[in-house]
């Protein structure tokens, strides 16, 4: 069953398009693939509209579809080389000091906003997709842990640890990039 009318679905696209596009952009790291992903998600949402529970937020449902499309076919938007969902996530075992080098109060002073954003996106790209997704949904999209657990189809406890590890990893990558340190693969 499709939504009642093309008109109503068109409203949903207008209302949630920006969110879907931004989430897709943070996941894929580029405009090009973000467009493909957002479009794919809306088309799928349209086709499977009958399975949508209207008592739940539409954006969570849409983000879940988008996330699944990303995982299904598009494993490697980040600049990793071999990505497998089954591969154990690379949790760092080092000292906290190593993991969290001392930071200046405002290390980004002097960077333009655009450069800063590029840096951030690079840092996001450099971490495994589970962390990137969890942190993006929480910090950039402002969703609750419950919503994220629905989107990522995992328990809230897992969301919690992914957000935590993710922030640490992104933080470390961000600092290394800022320092123009070694190239992140």
């Amino acid at each position, binding site marked *: 069953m499709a939504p009642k009318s093309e008109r109503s679905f068109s409203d949903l696209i207008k209302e949630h398009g920006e969110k879907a596009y931004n989430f897709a952009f943070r996941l894929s790291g580029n405009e*090009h693939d973000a467009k493909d992903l957002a479009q*794919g998600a809306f088309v799928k949402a349209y086709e499977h509209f009958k399975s949508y529970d209207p008592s739940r937020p539409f954006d969570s449902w849409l983000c879940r579809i988008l996330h699944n499309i990303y*995982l*299904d*076919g*598009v*494993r*490697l938007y980040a*600049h*990793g*080389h*071999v*990505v*497998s*969902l*089954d*591969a154990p996530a690379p949790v760092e075992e080092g000292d906290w000091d190593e993991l969290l080098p001392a930071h200046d109060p405002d290390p980004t002073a002097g960077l333009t906003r655009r450069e800063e954003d590029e840096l951030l996106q690079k840092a996001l790209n450099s971490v495994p997709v589970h962390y990137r997704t969890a942190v993006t949904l929480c910090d950039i999209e402002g969703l609750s842990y419950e919503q994220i657990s629905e989107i990522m189809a995992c328990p809230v406890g897992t969301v919690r640890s992914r957000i935590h590890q993710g922030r640490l990893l992104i933080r470390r990558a961000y600092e290394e990039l800022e320092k123009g340190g070694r*190239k992140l*693969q």
Partner: protein
Amino acid sequence: MSRTSRRISGLLAFSLSLVSRPAFAEAPDPQKLLESALNPPDVAFRGRMMVTHWFGKQTSAEEVEVYHSPPNLNRREFLSPDGAVQRVVVSDGDVEEIRLVRRQRVVSGDAVKSYEKIMKPERELELLLKNYELSVATRTDEVAGRQAWILELKPKVAGKPWQRLWVDREHGLILENKRFLPKRHYAELSRYSRVELSKNLDPRLFELKLASASTAGAGSGLEPDFMTLEELSKATGKMVSFPTELPSGFSFESADYFSVGEQTVLHARYTDGLAVLSLFQTDKPVRLPKGGTATVAPPSTARPSIRLAAIGKVLNWKRGRQYFTLMGDVSVELLQSVSAQLK
């Protein structure tokens, strides 16, 4: 047996009516755009490309540093994640050399497209136009800082992959190449992240190290032959019964044979202008991976997965005393419908 390769020098094999590459103001004619993309770029450049192969939930990707100098000198350095060069493929349009860096081995053979195939390029293009719908997006897109037209090749029959090419407006260079499986999952993708046009590339980049080649290409498949069915039958002394047409628009293009141990493998190639199918005939069965996964893609290693990702799918059967293996990047249903016709 004489294995006459109808080699002619490089580009002359391409007798397509080649068009010059004007900077189109409006979306160009799809066929003309395709023809312009089929030429090697007319400028020297150096670029960084990411090549990704997908299958299911796994991906293998590698970065390639590409060097091109007209008319057809090419060097591709495949990099490992730490940036080290793993393999180098150098071609002068006539000879192609693959340097396996870790193994310190050089394999050389005939360059891609240095042969005259049995099927004329005009006929291949005709098949492509019959089997695919060509269209060009009305807007250009930017890849690696360059403007590109997007050309789409969409199959008219279900079960075939389709392809999109991002063709540089100015020089016809293929900046991005996406190949999708039928349900629009990616199959393969290559995209330049950087392109630098360059007047002078060091000629040493394209030097072939033939003199020091430690391994010849024999048996590696680097020297394919292009035979008619009669020639194949004569050369191998075997009865061959490959049809000239297969379902879904595939036509016989050429045949070849090679040895695996003491066994002779007959190889018939079919094309629909874009996708290709290989049909092999053997006296002994061909071993498929056990259970379909174990030897094909152990999750811990990336390399073997590449193989299957790009080959597509394999189907085999026995007819009389002969074994047949059909291979191609199409859906299982399509392979089955093709094999049904052959059984």
